[in-house]
């Protein structure tokens, strides 16, 4: 495989603003085929926004996003939907369709895009549900599931079309240690067994280290550091060390911009 086709997603010089707030400012990033790539960063750096940009739910102010060498800004709706069929996306809160049962939620993409028989759909859906340990919950409604279970159903739904690219938005939040371990292994196993590529957005440094091939740390609208988890752990940059080791003091301020503490409590404004 030559060097060009090795890059699945390339982002060049990306700018994006939300209102007056500049979220990305000249972001450059490459996601390699067949790898698990993690995108990390402090809260509010726009990690989820980046996923929305890659899938063109929103459009950048400036810059190019190439998926398999195709500039996604040039696609019409049909082309975009064809592209999206190659993506499986796991949303932060699961985003299950509340009027459908667990089974129908997982079957939804198959019913929409394929002409498989009911019997075959049942097989595929039960297989995927089994992989996330929820075959027994097939007849339940999303409202009856716990947050972690809903996420696992959403994962089953994300992989039901056998996508080329699986995107996980904060997959580890709110999972108990057992489910977390299973999901982490599942992410890795699916990536390798099915030959797909995975993009993980998370700030769970520990889990990322065990599963990711390559990580990007985003801060202030740019890639602050990149490399394997080991490389990041050993990095000398203060920002990377602060993030990887979870320290309160460092270049990333824990406090949002505010007037002087003592002044605000005791000063003239206090009355």
């Amino acid at each position: 495989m030559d060097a060009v086709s090795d890059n699945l997603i390339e982002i060049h010089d990306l700018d994006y603003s939300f209102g007056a707030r500049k979220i990305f400012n000249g972001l450059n990033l490459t996601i390699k085929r067949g790898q698990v790539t993690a995108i990390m960063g402090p809260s509010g750096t726009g990690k989820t926004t980046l996923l929305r940009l890659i899938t063109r739910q929103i459009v950048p102010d400036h810059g190019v996003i190439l998926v398999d060498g195709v500039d996604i800004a040039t696609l019409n709706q049909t082309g975009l939907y064809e592209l999206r069929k190659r993506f499986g996306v796991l949303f932060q809160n699961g985003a299950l369709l509340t009027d459908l049962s667990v089974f129908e939620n997982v079957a939804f993409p198959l019913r929409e895009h394929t002409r498989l028989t009911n019997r075959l759909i049942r097989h595929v859906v039960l297989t995927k549900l089994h992989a996330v340990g929820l075959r027994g919950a097939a007849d339940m409604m999303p409202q009856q599931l716990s947050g972690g279970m809903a996420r696992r159903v959403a994962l089953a739904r994300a992989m039901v079309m056998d996508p080329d690219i699986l995107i996980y938005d904060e997959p580890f939040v709110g999972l108990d240690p057992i489910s977390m371990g299973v999901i982490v292994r599942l992410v890795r196993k699916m990536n390798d067994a099915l030959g797909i590529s995975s993009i993980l957005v998370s700030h769970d440094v520990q889990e990322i280290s065990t599963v990711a091939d390559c990580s990007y740390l985003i801060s202030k609208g740019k890639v602050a550091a990149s490399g394997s988890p080991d490389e990041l752990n050993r990095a000398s940059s203060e920002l990377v060390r602060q993030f990887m080791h979870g320290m309160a003091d460092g270049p990333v301020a824990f406090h949002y911009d505010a007037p002087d503490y003592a002044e605000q409590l005791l000063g003239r404004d206090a009355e």
Partner: protein
Amino acid sequence: MLRDLYYTAFEFVRTFGALQLFFLRLLIYTPAVLSRRFGLVIGQVHNAGALSLVIIVICGFFVGAVLGLQGFSNLSRFNAEDSVGAVAALALVKELGPVITALLFAGRAGTALSSEIGLMKATDQLSAMEMMAVNPIRRVVVPRFLGGVVAMPLLAAVFSMVGLLGAHLVCVSLLGVDVGSFWQQMQQSVEIADINEGIVKSVVFGIAASLLAVWEGYNAIPTAEGVGRATTRTVVLTAIVVLIFDFMITAVAI
């Protein structure tokens, strides 16, 4: 001040234009939805129509009963109480049936549509569909819109029918109006044009009420407060639009 006025006017024109484009999109998708997702449309006719029947039947009955009482007491001053059937029928078929049904429809089905679509948006369900390459307007909005458009005229017809039964019960069974004259006067004075006017109104109101409900839901700010506001706006806007259209259609028909 002048600037505020300018922005308000600008915003109004912009929203109105966007609403028309939205309506156009719904119409363009309608044939495909009818042929490929007919089951979804039927389900929504059930949601918007069958589930609104209780409120329509109860309200229709009492509106008809009040019409009977009022008609009887006013007409008896002129010794014309036999015409009460005709008066009640004309009022119900041409005016009260479509208008009150539309207002009740907005309160019962319209709010349900807005809040359902708004909440689907707030919980990322619409984005999730987009990401699964399923157009949420086709899958979610158009079936609900069509369900409302089909259900509303049917509900208006039920309302008028139950209203007439209410008027009949009050006038004939309680107040002693002759049953023959009650129905005969009605048959003589209600013409097919009157019924057509009622049908046109209920269809137009059905389109307006369903369109506003799905529009407000689809454009709701995806928060609890935003969905709440969208639901309120659905009822308020539908009431205003229905009454304005009612005036316009009546003016044309007369």
